[in-house]
């Protein structure tokens, strides 16, 4: 049923559907040792800085997180980006002319995934996974196309279309698998700087300060609630998923801030997949549940499953949102951290 698959990815089941595509690639990935390179977020960073020509004229180079060196006769001006990096670049002051990936929710509002991007100033070249309206893309005359990756999986540019898209403009990829939020933001900042933004602008500095304050708030809350265990989960009709902190940059960051995140024993591409009967396998004091409106089940729907309803955290009323759609930017992620600090601050540690 390939027909059903592509839009399904768009419908918010991104991470889970990808899991399947991802698994196909997983073996190759492990074999080539790419995994190690991905986990190491420091790798390849310097090259971005080195390559960033401060002047708008003259040749421009940037080495992306796959180690691919992009050389252009001058600094790219016209950027087409996937929603997540678009939101990240936007908050650094780089405004893409074109977007691909989720931009609006099913009911027509601006998607949380697009962050602060002003959709009236950008052109959509496609929203579904792998969807590229080539004529539109070409008419935008992009100098550079930017997306993210989870492991070997180049986000929203699957192999089938990669070659075609690459012919229009070079593709720069920022790795997000296993990259904690601040590292990812820093890396987006390097790309933005290479594109001519000022990562030390007053605005960015203030956002960063707010972000760091919020992070300190989480650390303080976590310290005050020693022994609080936190599980990060998602549910569909088919399955119950427990998120792997080593994969998701946000969950990894929560862990770095001192939260005791429940680690699933056998995660595959970001999640351990469980049947609903087994949904009670990992117990925690606090559960963060996937807040995406599409694809997953709502809190109310989850209530139909005895293994959810009967789990200690749910019984104790300690369930909060996992804001999976928030792009990794200082401006957008600060709220996630503040909310988390408040949730942790209120939580009881004696549930399990």
């Amino acid at each position: 049923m390939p027909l059903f698959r592509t839009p399904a990815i768009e419908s918010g089941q991104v991470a889970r559907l990808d899991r399947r595509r991802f698994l196909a690639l997983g073996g190759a990935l492990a074999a080539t040792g790419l995994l190690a390179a991905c986990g190491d977020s420091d790798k390849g960073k310097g090259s971005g800085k080195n390559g960033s020509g401060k002047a708008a004229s003259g040749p421009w180079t940037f080495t992306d997180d796959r180690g691919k060196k992009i050389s252009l006769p001058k600094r790219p001006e016209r950027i087409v980006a996937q929603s997540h990096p678009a939101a990240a670049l936007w908050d650094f002051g780089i405004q893409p002319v074109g977007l691909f990936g989720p931009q609006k929710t099913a009911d027509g509002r601006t998607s949380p995934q697009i962050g602060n991007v002003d959709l009236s100033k950008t052109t959509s070249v496609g929203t579904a996974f792998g969807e590229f309206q080539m004529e539109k893309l070409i008419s935008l005359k992009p100098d550079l196309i930017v997306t993210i990756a989870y492991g070997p999986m180049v986000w929203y540019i699957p192999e089938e279309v990669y070659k075609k898209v690459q012919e229009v403009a070079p593709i720069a990829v920022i790795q997000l698998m296993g990259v904690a939020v601040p590292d990812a933001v820093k890396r987006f900042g390097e790309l933005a700087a290479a594109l001519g933004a000022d990562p030390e602008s007053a605005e960015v500095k203030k956002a960063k300060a707010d972000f760091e304050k919020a992070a300190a708030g989480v650390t303080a809350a976590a310290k005050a609630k020693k022994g609080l265990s936190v599980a990060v989960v998602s549910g569909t009709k088919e399955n119950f998923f427990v998120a792997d902190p080593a994969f998701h940059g946000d969950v990894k960051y929560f862990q770095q801030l001192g939260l005791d995140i429940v680690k699933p024993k056998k995660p595959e591409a970001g999640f351990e997949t469980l049947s609903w009967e087994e949904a009670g396998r990992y117990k925690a004091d606090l559960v963060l549940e996937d807040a995406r409106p599409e694809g997953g089940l709502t809190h109310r729907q989850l209530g139909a499953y005895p293994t959810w309803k009967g789990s200690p955290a749910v019984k104790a009323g300690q369930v909060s949102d996992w804001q999976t759609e928030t792009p990794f930017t200082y401006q957008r992620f600060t709220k996630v951290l503040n909310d988390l600090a408040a949730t942790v601050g209120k939580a009881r540690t004696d549930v399990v």
Partner: protein
Amino acid sequence: MAILCFVLSSSQNRSAASPVRPPETVPRRTCVHLVAVPVCLIVLGLLCLCSIALGTKSIAPERVLELLWSPDSSEESGIVHQMRVPRTEFGLVVGAALGMAGALMQGLTRNPLADPGLLGVSAGASLGVVLTTGLLGITAPQGYVWFAFAGALAAIALVYALGSAGKGGATPAKLALAGAAVTALLQSLVNAVLLFDAAALGDFRFWVVGSLTGQPAEVLVDVLPFIAVGAVLAAATAPALNSLALGEGVATALGRNVGLVRLRGAAAATLLAGGAVALCGPIAFVGLVIPQLARLLTGPDHRWIMLYSALLGPSLLLAADIAGRLIARPDELHVGIVVTVIGAPFFIALVRRRRLREL
């Protein structure tokens, strides 16, 4: 389980290949049924118990039995009563409905490869589901189950109207052609909705594979009366299918109103298949394989085929569901996938083993 019945009643397989005979003249076969029917019932009962006792979560059998009679507030009790018992009930009802609907369709169209989807039931129900989840935004199963049902009814009505137009009324060939055309039309509409509205997909994707766990137990109670009426109608139609099997001319000469039999049969198949599809999605192969298997056991008498289909259908569905829970631990496989994986090679073997009996 079916194999067991098959072995037990293998003595009468030889006669299945012999020309059509009125069953009254074969007392030996009745004796076989006296054994085979209880055996099928026992197998089905055992499968029900297995379905309640086995799952991705291991619960000791004695604990399951204890919980079955005296539920408590434990997680295990919740799993048994709110997950395993309902899915077993769904398996029983949907399996029987699909088996009987398949037997009806094969008898009515005299086409051994007919299945409940032939008259556009699955495609109609699919369209009903995507329209409600996509355009109306109803994602609660209680909401879309009726639209799935309505879609199935509308599709089959359209097929019947198209198929009965023109000379000769609703002949099997015309019905099958109309069914194929309407299915293609509906399927393209489904695809169009899915293409424009990705949000419609989440639920549809789950539903279309076929699962016993997609609906809350209350929905089963709501849909059950329709399936029950369909089952009664199907049982009442079965004797007439025997005359129909002799050819339209002979059936008419025997005093059957062929048009009426077809209409009644189609109504029964719609209620059965429409209800089953609305509840658990278009589970393939049960409606195709089970009547074939029943025919192997019983010979050409549609009354027995109907009974065995009603017994073997849920057996296959439950066995597949249990297998799906056990092979992918701690994950689960959808029953729709398991049935197809089991059903396809089995069906090929069946077709190769003996020339399909012409109906």
